[in-house]
């Protein structure tokens, strides 16, 4: 820090801070390098004793195990890489669904915490207090062993209105089955998406030019849904046929069967994360001072405009960063799937380790996978923070 004092030649080199800093760093690098070499060497020797070498070529080998739930085609004759991909997709699906539901429930909780209704307010606070002090893993296992596996057998299934079957073999819900016109419909949706993005760009540009931003997001949504609905109606046969689940022998069939593992994970993660998201939302809304709202009203904005143009943008600035880290937490916590047996990327990798004995490679791969998630998210966060940063005078 006090670099300015070391200008003369009177200071011996062993007290010159600049030289000491360089020497210290060299020593540090050397220490880290030696430690790393020690570890790596031991590992190579250990692996050699087991008759193995490092490398990722084993990923092309046949996996030889089945995976219960797959989004893409997979059989036990597929490669390890394919199995890993199946796990990755399952993680992404679970995280995406979890994020959507947790956000919805979390926003409801956050708003409930601000409600003037005492009972609602207290219920939300109670919920938060209960969830916050629970161990997530125990919570997930409770949902799996204590709730979804304790549902009645298929023969005595609980049937909720709307043909929702609750059984210990899974939860059956009605589901659309693609019919002959589905490929065409997919093209129509794609067209709609392009149209929507184009409209969004045009509206955005216009808002910048005129200084009166239109409700871009709303118009984009309307356009997309209009295209989707019109496309659905003009096709000769509706692209998705609704199929209801039904009992077939000892199992459920038809519709979409959600496994107990998946349901337990999803409900546990959603209920857990929603409590934290609720707090984030509450803090964000509270961070907007009353004066802002009063000023907006004084300027003649109505209630909706106040929310949209004044409160919401300011609250969002506070909400988004912690919200993203909650999303990231949910994604990382989805790795607890291994405890209930849902084949996410970690569970599948663990199976691969047991099959192939390639612990070092697979653990590195899994860590890199999660690291990628979080790096991508933090890049997005930095970009967003730059974008919404307060422009100060």
């Amino acid at each position, binding site marked *: *820090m006090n670099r300015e004092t070391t200008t003369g030649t009177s200071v011996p080199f062993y007290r010159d801070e600049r030289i000491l800093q360089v020497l210290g760093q060299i020593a540090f690098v050397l220490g880290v390098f030696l430690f790393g070499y020690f570890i790596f060497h031991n590992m190579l020797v250990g692996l050699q004793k087991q008759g193995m070498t490092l490398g990722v070529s084993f990923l092309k080998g046949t996996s030889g195990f089945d995976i219960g739930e797959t989004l893409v085609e997979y059989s036990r004759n597929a490669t390890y890489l394919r199995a890993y991909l199946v796990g990755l997709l399952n993680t992404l699906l679970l995280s995406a669904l979890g994020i959507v539901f947790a956000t919805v429930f979390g926003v409801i909780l956050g708003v409930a915490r601000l409600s003037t209704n005492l009972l609602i307010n207290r219920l939300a606070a109670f919920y938060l*207090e209960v969830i916050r002090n*629970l*161990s997530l893993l*125990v919570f997930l296992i409770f949902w799996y062993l204590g709730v979804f596996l304790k549902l009645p057998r298929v023969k005595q299934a609980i049937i909720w209105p709307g043909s929702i079957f609750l059984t210990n073999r899974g939860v059956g819900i009605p589901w659309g089955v693609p019919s002959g016109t589905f490929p065409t419909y997919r093209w129509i949706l794609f067209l709609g998406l392009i149209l929507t993005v184009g409209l969004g760009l045009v509206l955005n540009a216009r808002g910048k030019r005129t200084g009166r931003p239109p409700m871009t997001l709303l118009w984009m949504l309307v356009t997309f849904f209009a295209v989707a609905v019109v496309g659905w109606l003009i096709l000769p046969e509706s692209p998705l046929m609704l199929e209801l689940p039904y009992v077939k022998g000892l199992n459920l069939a038809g519709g979409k069967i959600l496994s107990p593992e998946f349901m337990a994970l999803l409900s546990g993660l959603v209920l857990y994360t929603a409590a934290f998201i609720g707090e984030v939302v509450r803090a964000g809304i509270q961070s907007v001072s009353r004066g802002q709202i009063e000023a907006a009203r004084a300027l003649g904005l109505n209630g909706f405009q106040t929310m949209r143009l004044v409160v919401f943008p300011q609250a969002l600035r506070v909400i988004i960063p912690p919200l993203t880290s909650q999303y990231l937490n949910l994604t990382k916590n989805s790795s607890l799937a291994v405890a209930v047996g849902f084949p996410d990327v970690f569970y599948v990798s663990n199976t691969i380790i047991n099959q192939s004995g390639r612990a070092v490679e697979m*653990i590195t791969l899994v860590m890199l996978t999660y690291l990628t998630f979080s790096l991508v998210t933090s890049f997005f966060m930095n970009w967003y923070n730059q974008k919404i940063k307060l422009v100060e005078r």
Partner: protein
Amino acid sequence: MSQATDSLPPLTERFTVLGWLRKNLFNTWPNSLLSVLAILFVYWAGKGLLTWIFTVAEWNVVAVNLRLFMIGQYPADQAWRLWIGMYFLAFLIGNSLAIWAPHSRAWTISLFVLPILLAILPFSPIVRLEILGFSLLGAIGWFLGRSQLSGLRRIVVIGWIIFLPVFVLLIHGLTGENGSMPVVRTNVWGGLLLTFLLTVSGIFFSFPLGVLLALGRRSNLPIVRWFSIGYIELVRGVPLITILFMAQLMLPLFLPANITVDRVLRAMVGIIMFSAAYLAENVRGGLQAIPKGQFEAAHALGFGGAQTMLFIILPQALRLVIPILVGQFISLFKDTSLVAIVGLFDLLGIAKTVLAQPEFLGLQREVYAFISLIYWILSYVMSYLSQRLEVTLGVGQR
């Protein structure tokens, strides 16, 4: 009396039950509807829960296996060693409270109330007496602390530092297979004892490591800084379970073939590595909050770089982040349940063995509800007490 009647508010603002209800629950139409729905929900959920707790659930499984839940397979005739360790802890707590927070009522009360509440659980009479020993030792420590003997503070600080090694030594044992304190292998350590041990050792070792990493990240030596950033971001970017697996599967590979590390120690290493990264970020937050003037003043007074950090900056920074650190330690406590996945018999792991007993098949709800309750109560008490302690110590205020 006349004073009181004089100052009564006007009739429209007096407290009435109906008025209160109208104001808080039924002030508008939607609110009334919400209230009714909420009342129905509370009634339905509460009734279901109470019915289950008092009529359906078979709590016998908890009562019979209480020892397993608390200390796992730890030999019963050696349990006295655990008691000594816990008494030591109670003494230290009582002593520290009297010295550093002499006016904190919540802490003092909890010192007595908690053991009494614990003693209500269906333990055997002797165990109940032993639990009440906590209160006794806590009280002795408290009064000793009040006496303000000179040099007591230093002794207590040393006591805290040696607590973990002494405790580990006590439960591990000293004297080979036979003798007064035979060695107890770590594979029989379990239950709440193991959870407690993992948490405490996680805190104890990750603290210095985390502070070092935080300092490294703020250092003006680029290599040290980038190393710290790399470590912190790497660990924070991956789930704890991957680190635990790494510690479990790869740690033995990293060490020379003649050194074996037992499974509990491996899990500890994983937890410490994980916790240190998060702790570093929290401490860094505190470091950033210290104004530059403090550094400059320290330099002006002739402090060197290390002295400035050690005596001026760190004490202030750590004091600022105490609440966040306590929060982190609570989540560490809850996260230790993950070691059950890698096959240790902590509180969660022991649940599996309990449920595997043929006479208790199918009682998952009872067992996991009980475990959740333990985690919940301990976390809640810790967070509540830390909030009270913040107020007493005036953390964040100057």
